[in-house]
């Protein structure tokens, strides 16, 4: 039982490592003093200031817009890609396709950003599109690297899904397209939702790729945060961080409550079925 002791210590150390910085961040967001680490009394003035920071608010709005759009496109493309990898068997170009899908997962941001910028510049020279850089180019860039995550989630969901469900539907007279929309899609819907949320978060989080492919007038929230952090600590960022952490935690908490309840209901049903069998 000594081992279990070591393991729980390790676990608690890990959680402390993960959460102490976030907790400190939240605590100091209510600090009166501008010197972030010196406690000057409780205050919410940084939140008030945050709400009047127009540059930050418009950047936040732009980021949300880009994240929503790119996540939506990424979900469509990523679902098709995941379906192809899990269900189409061997097709010509599969290796290339699989490579292009998984490589963005580990590709350093600086390379993705640079290569996409150079593509946009070259395209603009060649065909005049995209005309300058801004929301469109950021959205395309984010779609490209987030669809890889969606594809991996969908692929692993489909691999664990009994293929005979789709075969049964086909056997009962449904054409392949109908099988996808009536059988496959409803069953993998939770995976699609989590794929969308992941793509949204990743887009909202990205500073490097956006810095490369954005143009004047299209500054995203992470870019604003990055430049202000580079000049040192600012209590406003603490306030912003607290708001983001709160929103994310509440969202995840609610989601896990719902999932938990469904899971429990399902277990109860299954138990009843066995007993009543």
């Amino acid at each position, binding site marked *: 039982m000594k081992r279990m002791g070591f*393991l*729980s210590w*390790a*676990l608690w*150390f*890990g*959680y402390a*490592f*993960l959460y102490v*910085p*976030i907790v*400190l*961040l939240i605590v*100091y967001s209510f600090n009166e003093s501008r010197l972030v*680490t010196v406690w000057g009394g409780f205050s919410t003035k940084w939140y008030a200031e945050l709400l009047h920071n127009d540059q930050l608010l418009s950047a936040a709005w732009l980021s949300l817009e880009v994240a929503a759009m790119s996540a939506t496109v990424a979900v469509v*493309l990523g679902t*098709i*890609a995941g*379906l*192809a990898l899990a269900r*189409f068997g061997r*097709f010509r170009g599969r290796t290339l*396709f699989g490579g*292009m*899908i*998984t*490589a963005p997962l*580990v*590709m*350093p*941001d*600086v*390379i993705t950003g*640079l*290569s996409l910028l*150079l*593509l946009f*510049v070259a395209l603009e*020279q060649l065909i005049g599109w995209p005309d300058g850089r801004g929301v469109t180019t950021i959205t*395309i860039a984010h779609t*490209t690297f987030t669809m890889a995550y969606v594809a991996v989630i969908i692929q*692993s969901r489909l*691999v*664990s899904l009994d293929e005979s469900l789709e075969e049964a539907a086909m056997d009962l007279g449904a054409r392949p397209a109908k099988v996808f929309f009536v059988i496959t899609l409803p069953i993998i819907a939770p995976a699609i939702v989590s794929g969308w949320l992941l793509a949204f978060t990743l887009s*909202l989080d990205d500073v*490097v790729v956006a810095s*490369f492919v954005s143009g004047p007038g299209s500054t995203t929230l*992470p870019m604003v*945060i*990055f430049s202000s*952090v*580079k000049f040192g*600590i600012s209590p406003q*960022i603490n306030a*912003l*961080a607290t708001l*983001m952490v709160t929103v994310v*935690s509440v969202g*995840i908490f609610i989601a896990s409550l719902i999932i*938990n309840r469904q899971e429990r209901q399902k277990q109860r049903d299954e138990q009843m079925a066995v007993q009543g069998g």
Partner: protein
Amino acid sequence: MINRLRRIGLWGRGAVLAVPFLWLLLFFLVPFLIVFGISLSESVIAQPPYAPLVQWLVDEDAGTTKLQLLLNLSNYLRLGGDDLYVLAYLNSVKIALITTVFCLLIGYPMAYAIARAEPAKRGPLMMLVVLPFWTSFLIRIYAWIGILKANGVIDNLLRWTGLTTEPFELLYSDWAVYIGMTYCYLPFMVLPLYATLEKMDPTLLEAAADLGCRPWKAFLTVTLPLSLPGIIAGSLLVFIPSVGEFVTPELLGGPDTLMIGRVLWNEFFANRDWPVASAVAIALLLFLVVPIMIFQHVQGREAEAGR
């Protein structure tokens, strides 16, 4: 006739597949070719700041035009010749390796403890590991600034306990970079480790114990080898992006914390030397090709095994 339907079926699949395929071709593969092309061109003061690779030469006397291809390897020669670049590459690998080891040291016991917790608790415990990942990466790095800087949390703590009297600053050092990167990439290590450890049959350890194996030896001879796929996947997931990391060394590292991502960024934004930046990117990519291929191989095998 026999293959009529098959062909229609394949055509339909092809049409569906074409959309993501073309997207990736255009926005993922072609850009690399362009980067490669530009890495072979010359830097000029123009918009865009590189000389075209292909030029039409008009010979007025003969009245003909010729296509001229201009390639120059000077950017790569510069990479090899200048200590700055070589050091940056080596330093990036060193920092990425150290980060990977730290993630493994902290992540493995966590993943193991979670995998051996009661089944009902595993989900929430894993959720706690992943939760920070859903909050902004930048903000998590930012949080460490307040902790590591002079007059920050650690400094104050040390002075309050009387261990130091001098101001103690960890910020703007390699150590700050190790801490920040380990912090950010830890979930990437824990996730695949947990996935393999959780699948492991606990009766294997009971069998080992029954056959007279002491717990630590059972761990070394049974658990550790069986979790190797998770260790490899997790290490690659941490190592590969770490090599090209930019944000963490930029915010937490000192001016002398050389990393290749920073060099690329500076060549591009500060020096506006696109060809050299491209050459740096291509060299970095070549550096990462082997680990990326291993990663894809592991990933592919996992997908096959899930079948």
